[in-house]
């Protein structure tokens, strides 16, 4: 006898505990919502895993959990972020990302309409990047046990022979390149935080960077020592990490660091430093000096690198400081952020 199951009420329905219990409701959520959004031949086989072919060479894997608040923000949502972020982590090795897994921890009561919108964004982001979400998992937790929705994604990619990017390869004299203006994701998120809402035209820069990476690798090859995407903690954290891992320091030119006037203005207002703000569609590359101009030109020719800039150089420094020559002619350091970046009180 065929059971006549009611359809998912995507307009008014919400996730309840039965959607995570392993029964028909869960199956309906997965096939009716996630598979619809991600649709590909691997998911269509409905196994608990997916097999894929690998060629020669090395593979790259990275994983990340997404707990962003608010879930929807100007320029994206937690779904597109979960796809772009993990693609970028894989791509920073110089690799071509190919497959993603996605697991969802959903709080009971979460609106199906929002979940659909997030899943659709993931599907769209993956298709746009030529990457497939080929396996996943869904759990539902009781109300109050999660902040709406958490997503974790793992990415697998393939690396061309001979490429081995790593922080310890940086050398004094290497140039520091950034792919565009900083801080837009951080400001976009803050502008939507409860009790801090302010009007801004700034949208998140969330984007998949692997295509830009491919162009850079084509231009610079092994001259690219290391690439990182300056997400949490911003450019300052990323360069401090690389400084410590490479045993070097950095000397940057403040005037060369691209920051949009709207971001600079929001930072002035809130007492924040754009170098500490998160980015989700920017990368920083440490490049051998003889290849830097070629890599920079390739970046500028790409739509995600048109505002790319050479902002300084790696220097020998036992203290591993990231120093900045300020706009007025002094020198300061750009430190790691301590704790959460908090607005000042006066």
């Amino acid at each position: 006898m065929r059971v006549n199951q009611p359809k998912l009420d995507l307009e008014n329905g919400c996730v309840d505990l039965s959607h995570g219990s392993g029964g028909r409701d869960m199956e309906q959520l997965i096939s009716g919502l996630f598979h619809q959004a991600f649709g590909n031949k691997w998911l269509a086989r409905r196994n608990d895993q997916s097999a894929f072919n690998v060629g020669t060479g090395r593979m790259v894997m990275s994983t990340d959990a997404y707990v962003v608040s608010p879930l929807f923000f100007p320029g994206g949502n937690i779904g597109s972020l979960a796809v772009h972020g993990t693609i970028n982590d894989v791509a920073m090795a110089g690799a071509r990302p190919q497959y993603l897994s996605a697991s969802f921890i959903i709080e009971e009561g979460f609106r199906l309409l929002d979940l659909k919108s997030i899943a659709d964004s993931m599907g769209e982001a993956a298709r746009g990047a030529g990457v497939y979400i080929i396996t996943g998992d869904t759990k539902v937790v009781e109300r109050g046990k999660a902040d709406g929705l958490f997503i974790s994604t793992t990415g697998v990619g393939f690396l061309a022979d001979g490429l081995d990017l790593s922080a310890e390869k940086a050398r004094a004299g290497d140039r520091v390149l950034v792919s565009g203006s900083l801080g837009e994701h951080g400001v976009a998120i803050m502008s939507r935080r409860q009790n801090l809402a302010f009007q801004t035209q700034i949208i998140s820069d969330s984007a998949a960077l692997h295509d830009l990476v491919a162009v850079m690798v084509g231009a610079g090859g092994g001259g690219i020592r290391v690439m990182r995407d300056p997400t949490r903690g911003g450019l300052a954290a990323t360069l401090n990490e690389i400084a410590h891992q490479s045993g070097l320091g950095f000397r940057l030119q403040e005037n060369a660091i691209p920051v949009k006037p709207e971001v600079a203005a929001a930072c002035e207002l809130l007492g924040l430093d754009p170098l500490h703000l998160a980015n989700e569609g920017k990368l920083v590359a440490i490049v051998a000096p003889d290849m830097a101009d070629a890599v920079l030109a390739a970046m500028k020719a790409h739509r995600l690198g048109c505002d790319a800039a050479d902002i300084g150089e790696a220097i020998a420094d036992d203290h591993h400081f990231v120093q900045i020559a300020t706009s007025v002619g002094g020198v300061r350091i750009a430190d790691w952020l301590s704790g959460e970046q908090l607005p000042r009180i006066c």
Partner: protein
Amino acid sequence: MKYAEEFRDRTIAQGLARAIAAQANPQKTYRFMEFCGGHTHAIFRYGLEDLLPANVRMIHGPGCPVCVLPASRIDMAIGLAERPEVTLCIYGDLMRVPGSQGQSLLRAKALGADIRMVYSTLDAIRSAEQAPNREVVFFAIGFETTTPATAVMIRIAEKKRLKGLSVFCNHVLTPPAMHSILGSPDMRNAGLPEIGGFIGPAHVSTIIGTQPYECLAEEFGKPIVIAGFEPLDLMQAILMLVRQVNDGRYEVENQYSRAVKRAGNQRAREEVSDIFELRDQFEWHGLGLVPNSGLKLKKAYAQFDAEARFAIHELRVADNPACDCGAILRGARRPVDCRLFGNVCTPRTPIGSCMVSSEGACAAYWKYGRHRAYQVMRAS
């Protein structure tokens, strides 16, 4: 960014630097205190010390409300926040300030206290409106700049009959603190040359004006230049101080004339004096008990006064004896002189409040000027 970038112009900054170098007498050492933490922050943020000749030195003052808050007030706030009926609304800078036992509001929050970070007094009003059955306490802190916003909050609470809202008042005043520093024997005892002049506060002066500093300049014979927070403001103010010292003048000059008037902001001052009155004395971290330096709510507003409402007793606790914050706040020592600086005490593990607040001298040294601190340590 219009109205900000113009005050960060490299060519003008270097022109001012040349003028300071030309006018500073090489036989003399000029020691100027920037009172305000915002100025300390700007000096380090823009690396201005690199633009000054070796005989023009900046001493960092106590003008950071978080830094001068004694640990006892943090203890009192934690005690308040631990009451089950209380929601404590605080500005973010306070979260990590250590109490007398090293505890903090951040830790109290992690352990379950209802502590909310707010960005303005309006957020506290919103919290009180949303939870009419809670006791919402606003941790009011700051110099004369932030006091009017607290006064307006109380006015609104009164109008809206927000019975659950009250204020834990920690507002302090600038001129009595300057008086206390100038009267302090620290500098002479430490064998240091005296402070040759002050860069006066920017935002505070928009409220109180330049007049309240006139008697200080006169009594102690020290020039005071009120300055804005941008690098060119500071460079120009330093040049004005050098000129006053060279001329033997001790006047109050207003570099920040685009925002500050001699009489200040009359309306804001009236709001404040309607609601607040002077405490006989208030404890400052680093300066001790300073007469007539703090504000409390007038009796007529006692219902909004958290100290009266919850019968909080004033605590007195001793500072960590190894921490030099006190002497640093008086300008008698530099952050790098403190033996805890950079090893035991960092922004991640602050011992003293000067390392916590973004406007504290230790935090500014650590965050922006650490490379210079190592140079100083190597040299000594």
